[in-house]
């Protein structure tokens, strides 16, 4: 145990001063350290200078996120910030930004250059990612991507996701730096690249990794010699990173558009959704069939909503059919209530009558979900439980015909399932004892229900504002207008029309 004061304490203090001095001595050395080739293949990640403070912060966060992604993927080691600073100051301020960045990257001996630039809009922010291989071995990574988002924190995540996509299937490239006295080869790839002791295949035949360090390894490989470049297949974890980024994109988007962070701040949106579905909406519909579903949406916090007329007509029509179908079929002779049987209401008609009345709550729920879907679209909000939307959609579809599709914002698909399933179920009940018709109808219903469940689970959500946050690059014509300083206290005005293909 180290005592807090005393001899050891003085020793540690002295060591600290020594460390400070070491850093002070080594800091300028980082800038001109000829480290090319000793470390793994390297990437220089540079952001174009930004004028507004939010974009400066965005650029900083994006650089950090991209660098962390490169580090996690273990293929190209990001250049250190102090070295990039030195290189940029060395190449001067003349010329277009990208050319200066390219010159700086070459000066550093980097294998790949990644530049990012940002454009802020009134509602949507854009980022351009440009990947340029300096070492031809990485030319397959050459790419230009434009991403957009309304949520500022999502831009760095989208850029990082694109970097992860670039790494799919990319092997580790390592150079043989030398040979040790006992015949092992030293390569510039190590644990950081995902290598571990054991046998592996390389582009130069079999190799036995004997020992790994952070960025280096000692290997036995008879087919390789000093100066060779080896291609080693090792898992990059790109798919894991992509999933992680998408998970964060979803969470950020939910924080921006989700009810608990907007309309129902500090309230329990999930409980309101359940209570609204089970208690408020059925009550509202009993009072005002069809329209009650729309009124019930206010319970989830929507301010001054307007109704989805089509949905009200559909649910009112279904409700009317459920109440009036049997009376109409019996030419208004049969008793109105399903539990009363009379001579004008044979057994099969009574069965249908019971089914129609029993399924009224499903109609109310379908109408409510449809109205909610409309409000979500219109006011740009995401429903409760949205982070578990696939499971939630499947659960709702099990209970309510079309429920999962409504939940994900697909109103037409929801009503299609609702009417087809309810029609088939009614037909099956009415014809249950009429040969095999009823059984066939039930079989078809089972197939449609299965399709619906799969559809509800796998179908992406239909909310445009959310899908924009999850989309990858955009390929549309964009106009770009910007002012940038040229380093001589002069302003350069750029106007560009950009089409990516």
């Amino acid at each position: 145990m180290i005592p807090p004061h005393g001899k050891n304490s003085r020793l540690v203090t002295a060591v600290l001063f020594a460390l400070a001095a070491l850093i002070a001595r080594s800091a300028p050395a980082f800038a001109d350290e000829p480290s090319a080739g000793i470390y793994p293949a390297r990437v220089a990640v540079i952001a174009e200078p930004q004028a507004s403070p939010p974009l400066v912060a965005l650029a900083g966060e994006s650089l950090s996120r991209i660098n962390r992604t490169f580090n996690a993927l273990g293929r190209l080691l990001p250049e250190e910030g102090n070295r990039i600073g030195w290189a940029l100051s060395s190449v001067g301020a003349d010329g277009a930004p990208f050319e200066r960045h390219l010159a700086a990257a070459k000066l550093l001996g980097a294998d790949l250059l990644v530049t990012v630039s940002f454009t802020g809009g009134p509602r949507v922010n854009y980022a351009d990612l440009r990947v340029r291989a300096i070492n031809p071995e990485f030319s397959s990574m050459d790419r230009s991507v434009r991403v957009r988002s309304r949520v500022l924190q999502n831009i760095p995540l989208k850029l990082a996701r694109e970097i992860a996509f670039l790494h799919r299937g990319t092997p580790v490239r390592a150079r043989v730096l030398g040979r040790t006295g006992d015949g092992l080869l030293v390569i510039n790839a190590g644990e950081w690249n995902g290598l571990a002791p054991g046998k592996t295949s390389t582009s130069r035949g079999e190799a036995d990794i004997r020992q790994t360090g952070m960025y280096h390894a000692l290997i036995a490989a008879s087919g390789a010699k000093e100066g060779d470049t080896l291609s080693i297949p090792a898992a990059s974890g790109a798919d894991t990173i992509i999933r992680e980024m998408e998970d964060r994109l979803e969470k950020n988007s939910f924080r921006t558009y989700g009810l608990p962070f907007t309309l129902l701040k500090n309230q329990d949106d999930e409980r309101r959704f359940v209570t609204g579905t089970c208690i408020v909406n059925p009550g509202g519909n009993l009072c005002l069939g069809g329209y009650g579903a729309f009124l019930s949406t206010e319970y989830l916090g929507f301010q001054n909503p307007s109704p989805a007329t089509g949905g009200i007509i559909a649910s009112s029509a279904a409700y009317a059919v459920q109440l009036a179908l049997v009376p109409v079929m019996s030419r208004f002779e049969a008793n109105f209530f399903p539990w009363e049987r009379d001579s004008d209401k044979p057994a099969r008609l009574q069965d249908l009558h019971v089914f129609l009345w029993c399924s009224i709550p499903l109609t109310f729920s379908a109408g409510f979900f449809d109205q909610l879907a409309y409000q979500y679209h219109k006011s740009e909000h995401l429903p409760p439980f949205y982070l578990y939307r696939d499971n939630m959609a499947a659960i709702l579809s099990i209970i309510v015909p079309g429920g999962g599709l409504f939940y994900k914002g697909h109103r037409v698909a929801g009503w299609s399932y609702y009417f087809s399933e309810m029609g088939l179920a009614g037909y099956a009940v009415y014809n249950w004892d009429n040969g095999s018709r009823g059984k066939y109808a039930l079989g078809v219903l089972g197939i449609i229900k299965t399709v619906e469940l799969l559809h509800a689970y796998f179908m992406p959500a239909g909310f445009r504002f959310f899908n924009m946050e999850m989309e990858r690059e955009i390929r549309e014509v964009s106009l770009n207008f910007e002012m940038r300083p040229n380093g001589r206290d002069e302003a350069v005005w750029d106007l560009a029309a950009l089409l990516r293909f």
Partner: protein
Amino acid sequence: MDHILLRMKKLILLTALFLLPCVPVHAAQPMLGIAGIDSGTPRAASLARIFESHLGNIMRSSLVSPGGVFEQVSTGTLREELVRFNCLEDSCVARFAARAGIAVILRGSIEELTDSLELTVYALGMDAPYYGRTIYRYRAVIPTGGLRLGTREYSYIFEEHAARFIGGFLRRYEKPLFFRNGASGMALESPEPVSGVFTVHRPAPERGALAGLRRHYPLGVATLREGRIARPSPSFGGIREGDFILVNFAGRADALDDFYYGRKREIVLAESGATDTMSMALFTVPASLTMPFVAPVLGYYATKDYAGLGLWAVNTAPWLYLEYDGIRNRPQLAREERRDIPREVTARYRFSVYMLLCGNMSLFVDAFAHSYLHLASNYQGVQQYMGNSWTAAYLSLVSGGGGHFYRGNRFWGYAYFHANNALLYLTLREFSGDLTYDTATGSYREGDIDRNRAYVLLASYCALKAVEVVHAVLSRDRLQNGIVSDGGIDILPYVLVDEGRDFILGASASARF
């Protein structure tokens, strides 16, 4: 005079610092530096300072450092210097640590997410046998949504994670102890005497070109007594200066785990004794009777435990149906109508009575214990009635999986719940004979019972109960904060649609280090 001497000392020190060559600084113990926990927001930055402070305190505590594992570099100074010289990347920090003779560097980050914090912390080893490799990586997602968390709670939370990280790190860390040829012969250079059987390693004569890697070979096994080779001498011959052994600290890691588990219990659980178990026993029948309504509505739904509600619905459906059927078609009705009574009817009825009186208790407990333990794990006040081994034993005894649900372990809870119910029902069935109504005598005649089979089933049931009770008593309460992953390999199946709209099926193995 003193003043002049002091100034001269400062001058000499500063001169020495700038003349100092880049050689590792010698210290009695390997040096450990906490090189900063990165953060992106002001709140995360203040939490990072709390975490760093706990890391340092625990590393210095008598739990970790009796006899010394590391000498610690001042965290604040190290961070300030690294930030001042913009040395923020792992590559730069590792290079610096290697030059400065720091054996282990701890780094990490805290990131704020929507309703959680993500803590990542890892240890890089600079010396043999690591040469820059990651010794241990710890990642925890700490929930923050829907919780009242102030400075005190955050301090508790980060102290807990610091202790868990250090425990995991000590379990994996292997410290090299070198042999030196001193005045009294070849001996291990260690502050405390080392005895036991160890593998002796020898470094290869030269370093890997440019890389600083040094290969070392296991020479063989040797017995050490008080830091010296004990007789008889090992078969691989003599020890040279520079040979080393690797010692680990798993024992200290276990002690650290035990200490912090006990400490957390003291903080978040009220003292609970045999009287609480008695109260639980008295409450068993009403709780079990009302479980089908109380657990889903007042338990899972009220506490927003929707996953628990789903599990409850799926797992209890067959048993609740059996209960319902047992009561609805009870043997008394058949007796009134003088019908034959199959043994299944008798068994179901008896099973229903068991479930209503005490068998449902386990899920009643789950509906509430899960929520209480969630609060306890996040330092949300002091929870009553929890953490009592007597209660865990009692609940396991009277209901399937009750003790494990009480401890917060749903997997084992449901496993015992189903095994207990299935075995009990089969046992009851085996002990029940078919009852045939004899119209001549006006009474029932019981059919044959296979007693051997019945007693085998009963013995199996008793064995299961014994295992369950012991398992529940020995289990720890699920009090851990957050969701932790500390390395390992994740194997995940995947289905992808490529740009040509073709399906790609496969599996991925991801290792984080």
